[in-house]
């Protein structure tokens, strides 16, 4: 994984890979657009929707402004409730803390509910290397885990797979009938399989959707109930959260619980919205606060990105995401928010991502916390265009800028090209220096240019 760190992620080439199966790509596009439409219906059913979005934006901005204060307050309150709060500077420290807790409690079988933070920090491979079995219990995450794959969407982790592929994965791991791809049948099989894992587990790991500074409690939202079942059985629960998950108090939850599921899947609320305030009787509850770059982001002009509540609405609506698939981004969080966040971490490696955007700004309009996503992506282009991979494009643009500054030269070149283009063989036009033509067909030149037409018309008018 480390060796990939500096490797350039070429979104365009990756998307090409995804589009090799046009039928699957079309299905992916339509499935996500359907989710977007459900989101629209859900949002429209709440007359005060825009008010909610503004409130969410305000609450998040306020909390971030005083993040240090609220974090200390949260720690104090949570400790008073019997929750052990730990802090992790970066991914490595986080992995170490989790492994230490599990080893100290002699836990070797862990059930985990969805947490993008643990994906971000590479927790699973770290624990597995220490002989700890980690079972992802969200159905979509379990599918990709069994397949040795990665989630391609933060809310719908297996949206890139068709049911026939799931049937194949399950038949080799859960011994289901490979020819039966019925979603109910496959879900039942997963239920039985995961029920055993739940019953055998020594520890549960969950993410956190919202942490409440005033109450020292936290909220986890799922549809499957896997966080609830997972934490209800073993005596050990480790909850993991990025610093930005904090909000001042439970009284702010009305705003966020009304926005989250409606934005994510078009549901009015998730099936389970679970509040954890104290460990189970006789149990142990740890909460790890992870920085991993968040404090640096807070000090930057990209601070607003920390307001994200990970609903995935920007992915579902994004015309580029829907047609290129989550894996094409090469990040844990894909889509518009993922591109913006990746640029704050490693602009060189993720230089192609701000360009995986049509600047249509649809993401801004669906974002429940009103992040100006397309503006962030546009701004990031200023930096990322400087990477060596784009040297050719920069040269091309400079040449174009030079021509546009010299009208006579411009007109002469256009005239020459108009004559040349239809006469040159394809191999010469689409040469290796023609970066624009690499992905596109050159336009067929009009017989007369605009200025020629204009001049001719002016002349005709004068004669009249």
């Amino acid at each position, binding site marked *: 994984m480390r060796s990939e760190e500096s490797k350039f992620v070429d979104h365009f080439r990756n998307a090409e890979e995804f589009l090799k199966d046009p039928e699957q790509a079309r299905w992916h596009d339509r*499935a996500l657009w359907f*989710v977007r439409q459900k989101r629209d219906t859900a949002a429209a059913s709440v007359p*005060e929707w825009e008010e*909610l979005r503004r409130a969410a934006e*305000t609450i998040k901005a*306020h909390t*971030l*402004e*005083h993040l*240090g*204060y609220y*974090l*200390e307050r949260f*720690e104090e309150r949570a400790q008073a409730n019997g929750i052990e709060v730990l*802090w*992790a*500077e970066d991914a490595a*420290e986080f992995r170490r803390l989790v492994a230490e807790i599990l080893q100290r409690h002699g836990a070797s079988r862990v059930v985990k509910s969805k947490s993008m933070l643990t994906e971000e920090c590479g927790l699973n491979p770290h624990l597995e290397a220490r002989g700890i079995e980690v079972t992802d219990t*969200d*159905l979509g995450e379990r599918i990709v885990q069994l397949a040795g794959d990665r989630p391609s969407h933060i809310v*719908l982790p*297996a949206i890139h797979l*068709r*049911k026939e592929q*799931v049937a194949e994965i399950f038949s080799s791991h859960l011994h289901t009938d490979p020819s039966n791809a019925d979603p109910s049948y*496959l*879900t039942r099989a*997963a*239920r039985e399989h995961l*029920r055993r894992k*739940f019953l055998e587990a020594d520890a549960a790991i969950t993410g956190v959707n919202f942490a*409440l500074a005033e109450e020292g409690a936290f909220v986890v939202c799922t*549809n*499957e109930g896997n966080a*609830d*079942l997972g934490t*209800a*059985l073993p005596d050990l629960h480790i909850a993991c959260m990025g610093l930005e998950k904090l909000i*001042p108090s*439970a*009284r*702010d*939850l*009305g*705003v966020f*619980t009304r926005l989250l599921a409606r934005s994510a899947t078009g*549901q*009015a*609320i998730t*099936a*389970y*919205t*679970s*509040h*954890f305030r*104290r460990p*189970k*009787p006789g149990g142990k509850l740890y909460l790890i606060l992870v*920085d991993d770059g968040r*404090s640096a982001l807070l000090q930057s002009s990209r601070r607003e990105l920390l307001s994200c509540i990970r609903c995935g609405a920007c992915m579902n609506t994004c015309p580029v995401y829907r047609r290129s698939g989550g894996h094409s981004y090469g990040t844990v969080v894909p889509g518009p928010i993922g591109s913006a966040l990746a640029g704050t971490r490693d602009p060189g490696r993720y230089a192609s991502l701000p360009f995986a955007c049509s600047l249509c700004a649809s993401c801004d309009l669906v974002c429940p916390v009103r992040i100006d996503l397309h503006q962030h992506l546009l701004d990031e282009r200023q930096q990322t265009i400087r990477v060596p991979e784009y040297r050719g494009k920069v040269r091309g643009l400079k040449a174009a800028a030079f021509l546009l500054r010299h009208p006579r030269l411009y007109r002469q070149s256009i005239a020459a090209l108009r004559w040349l283009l239809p006469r040159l063989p394809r191999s010469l036009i689409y040469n290796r220096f023609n970066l624009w033509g690499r992905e596109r067909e050159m336009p067929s030149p009009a017989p007369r240019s605009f200025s020629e037409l204009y001049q001719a018309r002016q002349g005709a008018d004068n004669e009249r």
Partner: protein
Amino acid sequence: MNAKQIILSRLGGHRTPPAEYPRPAIRTRPFDDPVQAFIDALRTAGGEALFVEDTASLDTEIIRAFDDPANIIDTRTPVSPTLETMERCDLAIVEAAFGVAENGAVWIDPAERYPRALLTLARSLAILLPCEAIVPTMHEAYERLDFDELAYGLFMAGPSKTADIEQALVLGAHGAMTLKVFLTPISGQSDFISPKEKQ
């Protein structure tokens, strides 16, 4: 410096306590018929709401609604079932403190009366909810909640569900496969008095 001190020092100027917190007030539109809104929202969430006219017939109506379940755990009186009995449980009967009209969710706090695991291990859930105890939206819901005594509590909206395979909705991913809410007329036995009203 330990990790906490390092992180807090990185947060620099973001450590000052807020002078004031202008919590945004949301103007919600009241429902004409909150009970009907609750019933509709619960149906959308894959659950079902049933009216119970007479509390005396409640038990028979629950049994009928679930097609004679063999193993029932009734938590109206405190119980301490074993893991094995919970695993075999066809139907758990639990009380909800209140419901939410806009989304069909009910607030459940097992407190010390039964283990948390029962809520997800039972195949079906019968949830008792007094008709009067339905608030319009999540804002009013959180106004009602008192966290002081809470260890674990949840809003449950319909049965456990997933659409992770090709976006096809399947009920009963891990937890309850069916969930029915029995709307009861308010009675002397009902414990629907929110903590705030108690004070």
